[in-house]
């Protein structure tokens, strides 16, 4: 779209606002349809991404953190953003970085409780991260192996029990021993900041939104 024409500029602002609103409201079809409309109208991909999709998802995360929105609404928004992202991806130029970073995620060894981990994965994907989900009962070796394979930025682990959270420390130890560049974030009901410090992890996510915030903070994004 011509950048200099005031009418075109106004139309761009309108479409971006519609994309933003659709993600905020978790309206999946509307978000995709408006992103497609924006692409058809030659609106800059970066503008759609940053001022439409990402800006809306950031506000969703903020509202969730403040107790104004709850998990189902966040999931709708994440899905709406994901739909828009899927349409945008083929239009990224080779120099654009399509993802904010890569996160390897899974539940700690021995733990099969994955609802929290699934929510974090969806929110990360919805916010533009590439996620390699290893599922449940993941050994420390597997976390590290996968992180090396996908050139991850972050390893995210969750545990529901005090008995299973101990293996998170083993992941940190392996990373430190091998001097690997991965940041580690942990979460789950029995985990807290004190445990995070005890095992030498980089961050503790109190809930899914906090986890997302901390991952962004770790990567400076």
């Amino acid at each position, binding site marked *: 779209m011509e950048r200099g024409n005031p009418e075109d500029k106004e139309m761009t602002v309108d479409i971006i606002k519609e994309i933003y609103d659709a993600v905020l409201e978790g309206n999946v079809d509307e978000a995709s349809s408006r992103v497609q409309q924006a692409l058809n109208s030659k609106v800059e991909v970066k503008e759609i991404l940053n001022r439409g999709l990402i800006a809306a998802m950031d506000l969703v995360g903020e509202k969730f953190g403040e107790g104004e929105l709850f998990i189902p609404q966040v999931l709708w928004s994440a899905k709406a953003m994901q739909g828009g992202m899927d349409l945008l991806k083929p239009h990224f130029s080779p120099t654009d970085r399509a993802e904010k970073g890569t996160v390897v995620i899974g539940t700690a060894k021995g733990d099969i409780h994955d609802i929290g981990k699934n929510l974090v994965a969806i929110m990360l994907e919805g916010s533009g991260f590439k996620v390699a989900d290893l599922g449940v009962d993941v050994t420390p070796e597997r976390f590290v192996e996968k992180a090396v394979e996908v050139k991850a930025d972050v390893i995210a682990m969750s545990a529901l029990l005090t008995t*299973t959270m101990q293996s998170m420390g083993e992941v940190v130890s392996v990373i430190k021993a091998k001097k690997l560049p991965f940041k580690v974030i942990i979460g789950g009901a*029995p985990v*807290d900041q004190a445990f995070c410090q005890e095992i030498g992890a980089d961050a503790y996510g109190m809930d899914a939104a906090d986890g997302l915030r901390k991952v962004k903070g770790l990567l400076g994004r």
Partner: protein
Amino acid sequence: MNIQIHREELLKQIGYKEPPQPRLLEMVDEVLGLLEELIEPKQAFKEIEDQKDLPPFLIGAVLKYTGAATLGPKFENKVKDLFDEGKPAEAYILDTAGSIAITKTGNLLWDEIRQDAAAKGFKKGLRRTPGCRGIEIETQQWIFERLADPELGITLTESCMMFPRKSLSFLARFGGKLKGTFSCKGCHQYTDCTLRG
């Protein structure tokens, strides 16, 4: 066993204090409709005689029980299916409803055990779940060896997690003096533990 979950308690559990938008209410109602078809609550309990390898929590009790309950595999599979179908909000709401349902199933089981104990002259009892409050997670193996009820359909993973995940188990004791500490109070997360509510 009839386990009823009301819309209001499910919304409260998700976090809503005020009624949410109609779209969400519709989804919650749909999920509650599904729940009725999906859960197959089962429970079992057994009185335990004095024996050498009693878990520390049961030592010194006059009357001892183990108990377990589950919502069954159909529920478990549906949560996974919804995630796989790209319906995470529905999956999350269903999972939350399942957590309420298994808690209620466990409370019914506890009522039955208390009635059994009351018939034997004991009014007050304590129950504890393996994996918390000083009870080793490996105690699960001890519990399920004694319950040994194939109808229940609960299996243990290598790390002693129950499958289906919406299952619970506990030890219960009546009478006698409790030896040792099986309380939350010694835990460093006592003041802000999310599990205590």
